[in-house]
């Protein structure tokens, strides 16, 4: 369905663009139809950049994104516009995704207008249908975004994403700015809809709990590189990479009876680019080879 092949993105900055920052380095994965791949990582690990590349919004420095075996960065404008109806993206902060000066209905009908797919009553019917699917009612349509809560907005955005009947969704931390109870609502709806519309999904998150709920497969990212990828169950039950293991170990469970992995020591890591394994500074299993070579993903 969709495949990322050796995606890399470097940002250049400074005088004469001499300094380089590898936001994403050699990331590859495949997503099958109806499957959810969860991109898991800490803030700043490059997962959002990877998501934007998948959605075709950022051009990679190297590598490609194949959608149904076609490189999306080689699309002609018309094909690209078509592709935009097939793939939708959901952002982290629902407050900012809709034009604050437009009423909800206008924002909702926008995709249809852009693609000239439907107008008038037809458009309104489709919107009504979707808006009810996400648990809202027509009274929300005449409101402005600031009049709605984050959870309601995220539903609207979900509805808008589905309006064009896409088959792929990139969801970039769609619930991280929401409260637990709202998060539960959104995730439930999301899962329902995914099943209903047979959606494939790239789900980006830093929350292990969420990943566990939603993912079929999980890819763990750290400082721009992918450290581990596998079935969600496998990753949670048998993490291989020391980083993944550390991540799982540090998970606090909402249960006062459990033993909590509280740890008040702080490791101070550097921000610089260096050779070797990205995780070496924090790794308990560090050896000489980690200093020298960057390990590659293996099965």
């Amino acid at each position, binding site marked *: 369905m969709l495949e990322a092949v050796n995606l890399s993105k470097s940002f250049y900055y*400074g*005088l004469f663009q001499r300094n380089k*920052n590898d936001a994403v380095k050699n990331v590859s994965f495949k997503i099958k139809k109806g499957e959810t791949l969860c991109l898991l990582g800490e803030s700043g690990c490059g997962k959002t950049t990877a998501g934007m590349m998948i959605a075709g919004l950022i051009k990679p420095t190297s590598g490609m994104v194949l959608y149904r075996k076609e490189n999306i960065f080689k699309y002609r404008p018309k094909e690209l516009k078509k592709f935009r109806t097939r793939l939708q993206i959901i952002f982290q902060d629902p407050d900012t995704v809709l034009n604050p000066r437009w009423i909800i209905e206008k924002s909702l009908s926008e995709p249809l207008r852009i693609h000239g797919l439907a107008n008038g009553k037809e458009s309104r019917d489709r919107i009504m249908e979707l808006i009810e699917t996400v648990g809202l009612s027509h009274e929300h349509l005449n409101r402005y975004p600031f009049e709605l809560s984050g959870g309601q907005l995220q539903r609207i955005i979900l509805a808008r994403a589905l309006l064009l009947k896409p088959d792929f969704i990139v969801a970039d931390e769609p619930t991280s700015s929401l409260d637990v109870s709202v998060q539960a609502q959104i995730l439930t709806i999301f899962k329902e809809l995914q099943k209903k519309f047979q959606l494939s999904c790239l789900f980006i998150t830093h929350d292990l709990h969420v990943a566990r709920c939603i993912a079929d497969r999980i890819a763990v990212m750290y400082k721009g590189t992918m450290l581990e990828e596998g079935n969600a169950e496998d990753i949670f039950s048998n993490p291989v990479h020391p980083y993944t293991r550390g991540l799982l170990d540090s998970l606090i469970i909402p249960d006062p009876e459990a033993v909590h992995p509280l740890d008040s020591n702080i490791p101070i890591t550097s921000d610089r680019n260096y050779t070797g394994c990205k995780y070496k500074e924090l790794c308990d299993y560090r050896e000489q080879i980690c200093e020298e070579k960057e390990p590659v993903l293996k099965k």
Partner: protein
Amino acid sequence: MGKIIIQRLVISILVMLAASFLSYFFLYMAPGDPAVSIIKSQTGREPTQAEIEIFRENRNLNIPLLDNITIWFGMLSKGDLGISVRTGEPVLHEFKDRFGATFLLAVISLVLAVLIAFPLGVLAATRPGSVVDHVTRVIGLGILSIPEFWLGLMLMVLFSLTLKWLPSFGYGTIYHFILPTVTLSTGMSALLMRLMRASMLEVLNLDYIKMARSKGLNRPLIIWKHAFRNALIPVITIIGTQFGHLLAGTIIIETVFSWPGIGKYLVDSIYARDYPVIQGFVFIIAAMFVVINLLVDLSYAYLDPRIRFEQGRN
């Protein structure tokens, strides 16, 4: 930071050269002959053709445009800006003899404006919605609506003509400074006060001010140590850019108060088509902008460590 400064300097020098060439080029292309204007201003009549030719020959006005530019470059590399067509004296001297007066006027006005504006701005910001705040706001807005030259004239009528307290023109004693500096600093202080208020209000609403309060610090300490310094940063930029307006303001004020500065001389030189003076003055003024902007950048770095270390972090 260092790199940014170097980058800026390089661009600025190009800008300086471009600006002075452009002004020269425009003057060269414009109608009017410096010989005519200058002889006219000295004798009060139009010169005859013969006189014009002699004058042009003597003041090197017959050199073609391009040659002139190369000559100017050559002189510039020796720190020479050429000779005024009008007075026959080196442009640099002409500038130096007049700049002191303009500079003093500008700097005293700026200092005066800052001394008035900052405390008032802070006062208004710390009491938003109070009488002080409303009054300063309306008065500030009103003052900003007064044309400087008109204010100068009115002050002159009031303090020189009617009350006979202050000299209306001239240069020399401290009394001569009062009217021009008050005129110049009035508008500027209103502007800076409003800026200071806005900036201060913004800062006072930030989390770290709450944090400072939660530490039990006294109000004056919070206002001056925590808020003022951070509020100053955007204001400093404006002061930097305002320097240009200050210079522009002095040009008008100099004509109103007969101030012996560069403003009036520049205006006269434009009319006299005194190419070397215009070219040289524009170059120097541009150079001053570079210095001012540099100072603004430096004070930025002094005030805002985020900028100081920007390059250092990565």
